[in-house]
C-alpha cells in the first residue's frame, strides 16, 4: 500500500502521540522513584537511591510480591490442568450440551470482576462456610485464568486436527501415551502462551481479589493501593512499579519470540 507524504506524516504523528500517552507516565514513575521529593513534585528536585534501598527493606512490599507470585503460579497451574482437560473434552468428543459448556467456560472473563467477586465471596462465606484465605483467592483467580488457557489450547487443537492422534493410535499407542508423546508436545507453546496470559491476569488482579482474599492475605496490587496515598510510602510504590514493569517485559519478550518462531516453522 502506498501513502502520500502528508498522510504518512500525520499517521506518524498520531502514532507518536499514542505511544507517548502510554509510555510517558511510566517514565514519570521511573524518574520519581529516584526523586528526593516525597510528594512527587515535578520536576524532581534531586536524585537519590533512598527509596530503592527502602523498598528492598520493606517487609510489606516483599511479602506482597511473594504472595502475588504464589497466587499467580498456583492459579495458573490449576488453569493449565483444567483448561487443557476441558479443551480436549470439548474439541475431541461430541456430546449433548457441548456448546453450552463451551460458553460457560469462557463467560467468567467477560463477567465484571465486581460480580464475580461478590458471587464468590457469598458462595465461599455463606454458601460453603469457608474462611477466606489464600486458597479461596487462588480458586477465584483460576476461574478466569482457565479461559486464557482454554482459548489457546482449543484453537491449537482445532488447527491440529485429529490425524496425528489417529496416527499415534494406529501405531499402537494408548490414550495416555498418545497424549504424552504426540498431543502434549504439539500443545506446549499454546500452553506457554495461555499460561503467561493467565499469570499476568492473576498477578495484577484487584477487584475479585478484594472480595475473595482473606484479611491477612495481601497481594501486591492490594499493598500498592493501601500505600499509594500514604505520604511516606509513595516513592516506594514508584520503585515497586518500576520493578514490575521490568519484570513484565520478560514474559512478553518470550511470548513474542514463541509466536515469531512458530510463524517461521509453518
Amino acid at each position, binding site marked *: 500500500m502506498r501513502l502520500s507524504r502528508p498522510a504518512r506524516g500525520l499517521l506518524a504523528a498520531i502514532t507518536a502521540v499514542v505511544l507517548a500517552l502510554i509510555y510517558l507516565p511510566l517514565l514519570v514513575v521511573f524518574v520519581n522513584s529516584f526523586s528526593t521529593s516525597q510528594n512527587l513534585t515535578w520536576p524532581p528536585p534531586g536524585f537519590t537511591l533512598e527509596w530503592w534501598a527502602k523498598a528492598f527493606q520493606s517487609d510489606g512490599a516483599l511479602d506482597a510480591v511473594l504472595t502475588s507470585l504464589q497466587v499467580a503460579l498456583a492459579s495458573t497451574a490449576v488453569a493449565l490442568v483444567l483448561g487443557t482437560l476441558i479443551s480436549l473434552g470439548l474439541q475431541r468428543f461430541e456430546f449433548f450440551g457441548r456448546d453450552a459448556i463451551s460458553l460457560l467456560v469462557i463467560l467468567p472473563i467477560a463477567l465484571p470482576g465486581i460480580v464475580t467477586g461478590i458471587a464468590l465471596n457469598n458462595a465461599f462465606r455463606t454458601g460453603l462456610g469457608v474462611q477466606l484465605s489464600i486458597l479461596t483467592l487462588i480458586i477465584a483467580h483460576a476461574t478466569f485464568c482457565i479461559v486464557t488457557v482454554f482459548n489457546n489450547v482449543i484453537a491449537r487443537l482445532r488447527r491440529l486436527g485429529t490425524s496425528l492422534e489417529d*496416527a499415534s*493410535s*494406529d501405531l*499402537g499407542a494408548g490414550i495416555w501415551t498418545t497424549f504424552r508423546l504426540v498431543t502434549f508436545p504439539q500443545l506446549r507453546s499454546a500452553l506457554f502462551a495461555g499460561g503467561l496470559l493467565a499469570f499476568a491476569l492473576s498477578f495484577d488482579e484487584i477487584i475479585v481479589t478484594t472480595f475473595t482474599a482473606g484479611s491477612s492475605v495481601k497481594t501486591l496490587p492490594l499493598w500498592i493501593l493501601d500505600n499509594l496515598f500514604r505520604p511516606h510510602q509513595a516513592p516506594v510504590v514508584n520503585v515497586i512499579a518500576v520493578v514490575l514493569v521490568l519484570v513484565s517485559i520478560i514474559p512478553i519478550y518470550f511470548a513474542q519470540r514463541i509466536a515469531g518462531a512458530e510463524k517461521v*516453522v509453518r
Partner: protein
Amino acid sequence: MTGVQPAIRLTGLTKSFGSVHAVDGVDLDIIEGEFFSMLGPSGSGKTTVLRLIAGFEQPTSGTISLLGQDVTDRAPFDRDVNTVFQDYALFPHMSVLDNVAYGLRVRGVAKRARHEQARQALDTVRLGSFADRKPSQLSGGQRQRVALARATVVQPKVLLLDEPLGALDLKLREQMQVELKELQRTLGITFIFVTHDQQEALTLSDRIAVFNEGKIEQLGTPAEIYERPASPFVAAFVGTSNIFDDTVSQTLLGRAGTHSVRPEKVSVTTENRPLSADRTAAGVLAEVIYVGSSTQLIVDLDAGTRVVVLEQNDAHRVATNGRGARVTVGWNDSDIVTLAPPVLTSHP
C-alpha cells in the same frame, strides 16, 4: 476349515452420519497377501470403510474381522493393521528416525533396537541419510516414503493406504506406484489401497472394489472391471466408455438394454471403405484429438448419438480426413458389454 481365511472380512458394514449412509451394508472378503483397491469418487464411502477397518470410526452396524478374529469393538491401537495417511500425519516435532521408530517405542522396544530397525526400514525406502531431519525438511515424495516406513516397520498384518499418492505430481506418482507394488511383493502383506484414480487402481491392484454411494458397485480383477463393467456407473467411472441406452441399443445393436463399448474396441474408416466388423454405423467426424500414442476421434452417428474412438498412431492407421468428413465406425459383438437388462414396460 472353510477354505482360505480372508485377511479382512466385512459383514453388513454400515456407517451413518446422521441421516447419511456413508457406508451402506458392505460385505467384502479381502484375501491375505493381495493388493486390494477400493476405487470410487469422493463421498462414495471408500475412505470411511478404510477408517472403519483401522478403527478410527465405529460402524453403525455390521462386523469387521481380521484373520478370523472379530475386531469390531477394538480400539485402533489394539488392531494389527497400520495406516498410511493421505496427509502422511508425520509427527512434526520428531526426527524422521523417531517417527519411524514410534510404533516400536510404544511397544516397549529398547532405544538401540528400535533405532536399528527404523534405520533398516528407512534404507528400504532409500531415505537412510535423512534419518536426523525433521519431516518439514522433506519433500512430498520423501514424506510419503517415511510414512510407508513408519507403518511397515511394526509388521502389520494389513497395510491400509488412504490415497497416499494424491498429493504427488504425475511423474512422482508413477514412480511411487512401481515402488508400492514392489514393496507389497517384498513384504508379502495385504495392502488395502483407497483411490479415486481409476488408472492407479487398474495398474496396481490384484482386485478392485468400485464404490458408489456407500455400496460396492462391482468387485473383480482390473481386467474384469475394465472389460466387463457391471453397471453404467462402473463403465463411465473406470476409463472412457461409449454407453448406449435402451433406444440407441435397439437401433445400433438390434437388442434392448443398456450397453457399452470401449473406444479402443471401435474401428473407424472413411465412408465407402470396407470395415471388418460385426456391426457398422455411419456418421460425421466431429473432432480429432491427438493424444500422443493414439488419436481420439469423436463421431456424431446418424443414429443420433456420439461415440468416441481411440486409434493407435501406428503405420496401419486408417487415414481419415479432418472434421466434417463422413466416416463409418464398427465393432464386434464380443466387445459389447451389457450393463443393464432391457427396460421392462409395465403390463396393463
